[in-house]
Every structure is written in structure tokens, then in C-alpha cells.
């Protein structure tokens, strides 16, 4: 005779709650997509590089060496270490600067996405849930926001306020909420008609509680997909602003700033502009691949 069947669910219940099981199934489906897994690995590597930068590189990213200017990749320095990606116009090690440049890129990416994500979620919830006048007003605001050529508005505002890390984060964050708002609004519009929401309302649930308990958790998935893909866009914008001299100020290394330096030496030192751009490309590609995988796993019909 086998052991009584009743005993099994009791022990299993602790090990794998439904939420946990769902989460594991999701992870398995996500990592089964090879491109998504590749994207995740790339993003993880960039994050590790940013966090562990001081321990990863041999050279100081802002230490100048005017005798060792514009050395091509693979040149051995006086100390015996090799400049794997060469040196820039002030003799600084390119690899060290690229590794350290991951910091502002990711910091701006995460912080700006957090601001615009929360803002957009709020607008989307209000517009979708209450509809009517509120919806009209908020969607007109979205139209106004969309009408601006983004980079131009950003550089105009940063030009007035003066460039700094905080300014960049706030400017990008405050002006990128529309995508989130539109996606969340669309989701809320359909959720509002669903039985469980109608039931919660019929039972006398107050608006705030219905939104928090029933709508928000279900609007979270599309929001997450948008946030991931938008992070890629924000990192490109951060580097574009640095490229125009309106990002984090020198001597701190930024990918965009390095590209701007490299542009000046384009005919004599190709590596200067090539490698920082590759760093941006690989990072953004990784995020895009991961984001695409996330969308295909969570919500294949989402149009973002």
C-alpha cells in the first residue's frame, strides 16, 4: 500500500505556493527563449560591470597620461599593463572609462524610468478608471507632451537649468510618461468591465481600494514590459545628451561624452569613437532582447 495521499499536499503546500509555482513557470518560459536569455545575460554583465567597476579595471578612468595619448588598442603602458582598447586624447585608458561609463548610463536609465513609470501608471489608472472629463484632460496632456521633439525640448530645458545628473534624470523622467499612461489606460479600460471589478464595486468597494487591490496588480504586467523597453530608449537619450555636452560633466566618463571626444579624432584614432558606441549598442540591444522576450512571454499581443 502506498502512503495516504492526504499527506502529500500538506508538505508540498509550503514548498511551492501557487504564486511561487507561477513565478517559476514564468521564469522557465522566459529563459526558454534563447534571445531573451542572451539579453538577460548581457544586461547582468553590464550591471556587474557598473557595480564592480573599481575592482574590474587596471587603470584609473580619469588619470591622464599626456605621454601616452591616442595609443591604439593593445599598447603596453609604462607600468607594464596593456591598454586593451587603447587610450584617448588625454592618455586615459579607454576600457576603464567604458566600464565606469556604465554607471551614469544605468543610473539615469533606472531612475528616469522609475519617475516616468510611476507618473505614467498614475495617469493611466486615473484616465482609464474614471474616464469622461478626466480621461479627456489627461489624454490631451499626453498629446501635448508627444507633440514636442523630445531631444530638442530636453536640451532646451537642461540648457536653462544647467546640466547635472539630477537634472537629466528629472527631465527625462518627467517627459517620458506618455507610453506608460497609454498602455495602462488601455488595460484599465478592459479591466473595468471585468466581472471581478464589477463585483468589487457592487459589494460597495471604494474607488481607491478597487484600483489598488483589483486594477493595479493586473495592469502591472504590460507596465513592466513598457518599462523594460523604455529603459533602452532612456539610455540612448542619456548618451545623446552627454554627446551634446549636456549630460554628466567631464571628467566623469560617459559613453556619449567619450563619443563626442572621439568624433574630433575620427581621422587619426578610430577606436576612440568606435568602442564607446559599441558599449551603448550592446547594452541597449541586451535590454531590447530581454524586453522583447518579456513581452512575448507575458503578453504577446501588447503593442509596444
Amino acid at each position: 500500500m502506498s502512503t495516504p495521499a492526504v499527506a502529500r499536499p500538506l508538505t508540498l503546500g509550503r514548498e511551492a505556493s501557487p504564486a511561487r509555482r507561477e513565478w517559476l513557470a514564468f521564469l522557465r518560459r522566459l529563459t526558454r527563449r534563447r534571445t531573451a536569455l542572451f539579453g538577460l545575460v548581457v544586461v547582468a554583465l553590464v550591471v556587474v560591470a557598473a557595480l564592480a567597476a573599481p575592482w574590474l579595471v587596471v587603470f584609473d578612468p580619469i588619470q591622464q597620461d599626456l605621454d601616452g595619448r591616442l595609443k591604439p588598442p593593445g599598447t603596453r603602458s609604462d607600468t607594464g599593463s596593456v591598454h586593451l582598447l587603447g587610450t584617448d586624447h588625454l592618455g586615459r585608458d579607454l576600457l576603464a572609462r567604458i566600464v565606469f561609463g556604465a554607471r551614469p548610463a544605468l543610473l539615469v536609465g533606472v531612475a528616469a524610468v522609475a519617475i516616468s513609470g510611476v507618473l505614467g501608471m498614475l495617469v493611466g489608472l486615473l484616465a482609464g478608471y474614471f474616464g469622461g472629463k478626466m480621461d479627456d484632460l489627461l489624454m490631451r496632456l499626453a498629446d501635448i507632451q508627444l507633440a514636442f521633439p523630445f531631444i530638442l525640448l530636453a536640451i532646451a530645458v537642461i540648457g536653462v537649468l544647467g546640466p547635472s545628473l539630477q537634472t537629466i534624470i528629472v527631465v527625462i523622467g518627467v517627459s517620458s510618461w506618455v507610453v506608460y499612461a497609454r498602455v495602462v489606460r488601455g488595460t484599465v479600460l478592459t479591466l473595468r468591465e471585468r466581472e471581478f471589478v464589477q463585483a468589487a464595486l457592487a459589494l460597495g468597494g471604494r474607488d481607491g481600494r478597487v484600483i489598488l487591490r483589483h486594477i493595479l496588480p493586473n495592469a502591472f504586467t504590460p507596465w513592466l514590459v513598457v518599462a523594460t523597453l523604455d529603459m533602452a530608449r532612456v539610455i540612448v537619450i542619456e548618451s545623446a545628451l552627454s554627446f551634446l555636452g549636456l549630460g554628466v560633466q567631464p571628467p566623469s566618463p560617459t559613453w556619449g561624452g567619450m563619443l563626442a571626444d572621439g568624433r574630433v579624432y575620427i581621422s587619426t584614432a578610430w577606436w576612440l569613437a568606435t568602442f564607446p558606441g559599441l558599449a551603448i549598442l550592446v547594452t541597449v540591444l541586451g535590454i531590447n532582447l530581454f524586453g522583447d522576450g518579456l513581452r512575448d512571454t507575458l503578453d504577446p499581443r501588447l503593442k509596444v
Partner: protein
Amino acid sequence: MKVYLLRRLWQSLVVLLGVSFVVFFILHLTGDPAAVLLPPEATAEDLREFRERMGFNDPFIVQYGRFLKGALRGDFGESIRHGEPAFDLVIERMPATFELSGAALALALCIAIPAGIVSAVRRNSALDYVSTTVALLGQSMPTFWLGIMLILLFSVQWNLLPSSGRGTWPHLILPAVTLGLFTTARIARLTRSGMLEVLNQDYIRTARAKGVNDPPVVWKHALKNAAIPIVTIVGIELGTLLGGSVITETIFAWPGVGRLSVQAIANRDYPVVQAAVFLLSTTFVIVNLLVDLVYTYLDPRIRLR
């Protein structure tokens, strides 16, 4: 139909009013527009006099009213650097920006739509893989890096194409490719997914079951329905192109509004910046209104509303 058009027109006007307020507000972000407009070495006496002369001491709403009245007549004040009306400076450079954005958009449509259709129809073929990979790379590549790499290869290494300026056809090639790649990638991906969705619909299966051959199914039945989201994205992508022209024009020394604005911001020439932001945004709003007109033609459901 008429009601729909009137409503869209009214919405566009409201959006432009909002745009004008933001453009006005840019100068007031720090709370002291005089300090933004005057050089840093201006004395307190200069500032006071300037504030008085420009009316910066008036109530906020009065100042905005004055700005709006000026903007409607194309008066954004004089360029601090050039001494000419800011509006004229921007308008002079508009054709160059339109030429560049137009070329980029044309390039994008000519490549992206066929690529997207082929990808969808021959799904999982080698062509599909190549096209989706290129599209993914194009969407991940920063414009300014692409521009610099193109200059490195085509101007510095091979000496084939000019790297700066405007005038002849060869001058247009590198900037248009640079500006257009991201949009090409976006439209190609959208066309592919749109076509895939439509090709799975019942009416396509019906058409095929009736014995309609492949080309007519793709062109007459599928593309017409997949075109609607493509038309929408074209309107939105025009915003990306106008904004992206800021960077592309800077890299290629293209004498358009984008480059003018970047220079104006460096020179703290804010009347020019305001005029540029306002006029580019207005262009975007007008184009999207036109896109909606095309829309009513493509999708009769909207016409009948």
C-alpha cells in the same frame, strides 16, 4: 465624419495652446528669465533694467498672453546673437530640415515595408532572420554613433561621400541613412507583426480556400488591413525624425533647424530656441492631423462615426 474632423481640429488647437505654454514656460523654469537671457557677467543694474524693458515684472498670465499674441503673429522676439527676428531664422532653415526628414522617411518606407512584408510572408526563412536581425540592431543603435561610423568608413577611409554640409545629392545620403535607420527598424518590425496578425485571420484563410493566389492575397487582402497601424506610426515617427534631426544635423553640419537650436542653446539665444521648438511641434501636430485624414480614407469605420 464632419463631427469627427471638427473634433480633431479642435483637439489640435488645444494641443498647440499647450505647446505654446510649455515653450513660454521654458524661460521661466529658473524663476528669473532675465538671468537666463543675459550673459552671466551682467550687473544687477542691467538685470533690473532688462526685466523692466521686457516686462518680466508683469503678472505671469499677462506675460503669457503677450507671448501667445506674439507667437500667433510669428513674433518670438529677436535673436540675441544674430539680431534678426528669431522666427525668420528658424523659417529659413526649415526647408533643410524637411529635406532631411523627408529623405529619411522615404528611405525608411521604401526599405521597411517590403522588408516587413517579405519577413511575414516568408516567416522563419533566411530572409526573415536577416531582416529581423538588422531591424533589431537598427533599433538598438544610437543615431550619433551610426553617423560617426558612417563618416569614418565612407568619408575618412574610402573617401566616397562628403561628411558635412548640404547641397548635392551625395551630401544627403549619409545624414538620411543615419536619421532614417531607427525609423526603418521600427516600421519594419511593425509591418512584420501587423502582417503576421492579419495573415492568420479567417478571411485570409477563406480567400486562400477559394483559390486566390498568393500575391493578390498579400496585396489586396492583407496589406490593406495591415496598413492602418503603419500609417499611425508614420505620423508618430515624424516626431522622432524631427527630434532626431537635432543630433544628425549636428554631426553632419547640416544647416537645418536642429543644428540652429543646438547652437542657440549653447549661445543662450532663447528666443531662437523657443521659435524652433514651437515651429517643429506645430509641424508635428499638423502632420498628424493630415495622417488622421488619410486614416479616415483607409478605415471607413472612422468615417462613419
